[in-house]
């Protein structure tokens, strides 16, 4: 409306100009210390430039001095909502170098815990997404169900968030005797509670108006920006690592890769809700028959990888997480590179947010499901 605005005193058209504003690094809806440099005209966004570096901890460099067993606990602190999958990626990469095959029991337990982690991550995302739109109720409901999963983790591996449970060569401990019982009880509970999520948000008229058609990302753009995970799948980009490069026990289970064509915020929301149903079905297929056997393969006290390069990717709750290890034969890697899903997903933000209002930027950012320590490691 800039052209029609006039000065009320003189009747002449007002001169407008682009201006610049910082969103963050201390902004409640950037979910951490992310600084966005916005170029605006009125309330319309012309350009978004993410500015990183506020919580850079040089994790990749720290990995170069740590042993392979010690690296695992650093990956917890990147994408803390899918810490188990991060641990698994490093463990699988090291096991690839050691050329050991995991027992069936380890594979199945890793897969169950991965899916539980995905569920808890999506639950937290659902709660926080509601809160970004101004609905505090969803936040409390999401955390209520997440608490049950966290209890399962706490009983089995002792930690609630930074689990450090997958180690090169298997698992740190065997599962707790209550694990199966609790997990079954949770799935039964959550099958009844997930429809409540739909009742609270999905059909809500305000919610639909704020998400439908906002922040559209086409399939071509998703591929060119490397957007993976539920965000990419909402644009029709089939990228599920569990389907295309199955690892652990994923070859044994049947599940659908959730795909949608619209590519807007509502599609990304629906993909995650649908993924929760798929995760529950994967858990149900595995939980009844956890094979007996060792929870760990005997490895040397200090693991040394043979000289070479190893790459392993896994599907975290946010997308494709990759670990690239270059070993010179020593007890710590020569170079270790993480391919984090959040970083690539964030790179598409400018493209999606051009021309929308500031309030919609919050919606787009929230549906990307950004975890800042994952982007800025």
């Amino acid at each position, binding site marked *: 409306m800039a052209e029609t605005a006039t000065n009320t005193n003189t009747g002449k058209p007002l001169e407008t100009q682009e201006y610049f504003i910082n969103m963050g690094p201390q902004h409640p809806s950037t979910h951490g210390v992310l600084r966005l440099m916005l170029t605006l005209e009125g309330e319309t966004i012309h350009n978004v430039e993410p500015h990183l570096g506020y919580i850079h901890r040089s994790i990749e460099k720290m990995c170069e001095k*740590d042993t392979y067993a010690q690296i695992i606990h*650093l990956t917890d602190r990147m994408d803390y909502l899918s810490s188990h999958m991060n641990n698994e990626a490093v463990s699988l990469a090291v096991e690839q170098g050691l050329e050991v095959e995991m027992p069936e029991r380890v594979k199945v337990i890793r897969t169950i815990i991965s899916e539980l982690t995905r569920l808890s991550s999506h639950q937290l995302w659902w709660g926080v997404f509601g809160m970004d739109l101004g609905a505090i109720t969803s936040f409390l409901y999401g955390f209520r169900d997440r608490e049950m999963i966290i209890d399962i983790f706490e009983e089995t591996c*002792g930690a609630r968030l930074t689990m450090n449970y997958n180690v090169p060569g298997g698992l740190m401990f065997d599962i707790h005797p209550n694990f199966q019982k609790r997990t079954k009880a949770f799935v039964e509970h959550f099958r009844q509670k997930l429809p409540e999520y739909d009742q609270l948000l999905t059909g809500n008229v305000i919610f639909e108006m704020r998400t439908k058609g906002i922040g559209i990302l086409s399939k071509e753009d998703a591929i060119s920006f490397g957007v993976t995970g539920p965000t990419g799948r909402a644009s029709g980009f089939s990228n599920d690592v569990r389907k295309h490069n199955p690892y652990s026990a994923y070859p044994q289970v049947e599940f659908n890769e959730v795909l949608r064509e619209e590519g807007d915020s509502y599609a990304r929301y629906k993909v995650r809700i649908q993924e929760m149903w798929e995760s529950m079905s994967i858990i149900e297929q595995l939980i009844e028959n956890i094979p007996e056997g060792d929870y760990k393969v005997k490895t040397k006290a200090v693991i040394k990888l043979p000289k070479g390069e190893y790459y392993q990717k896994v599907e975290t709750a946010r997308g494709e997480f990759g670990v690239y290890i270059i070993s010179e034969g020593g007890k710590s890697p020569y170079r270790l590179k993480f391919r984090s899903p959040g970083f690539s997903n964030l790179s598409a933000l400018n493209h999606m947010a051009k021309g929308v209002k500031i309030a919609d930027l919050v919606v787009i950012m929230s549906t990307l499901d950004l975890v800042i320590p994952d982007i800025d490691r």
Partner: protein
Amino acid sequence: MKAIVKYISSIFSALKTLFKGMAVTGHYISHPKEIITQQYPENRETLKMFDMFRGEVVLTHSESNEHRCTGCSACEVACPNGTIEIINKRIEMPDGKKKKVIDKFVYHLSMCTFCNLCILSCPTDAIKMSQDFEHAVFDRSQLTKVLNKPASKLMEGVR
């Protein structure tokens, strides 16, 4: 005319979706037994963490004030952050031989990431994780702890 009917019906269907969400909230208001909120710290007596919970590292002592730590420093090596420092000393045994025992088992709680690697590395099961999770103190220096109790000794038979 049709447009007006459509407009009014859209208002009513929108209102319906709002009440649908409110119904869920109303259900929990009228069913207080389904609410799972806990009141902390009022429930301190009943609040028990799981046995596996990683609260902080402790050195277990027996009733006769004996611990199992031989001072081998395996935990110090396993720790990724330099949380544990073991300071050894040499004492003279009754038979005249000199023996290495721990002087101080220093634990920096402020640096600990609770990764559990020290517990796994201990060859004599001297240390374990306690379930205490209330670590808040007023001064940072209080987070550096000496885990072996004064005048404690190495347990007989542990080597």
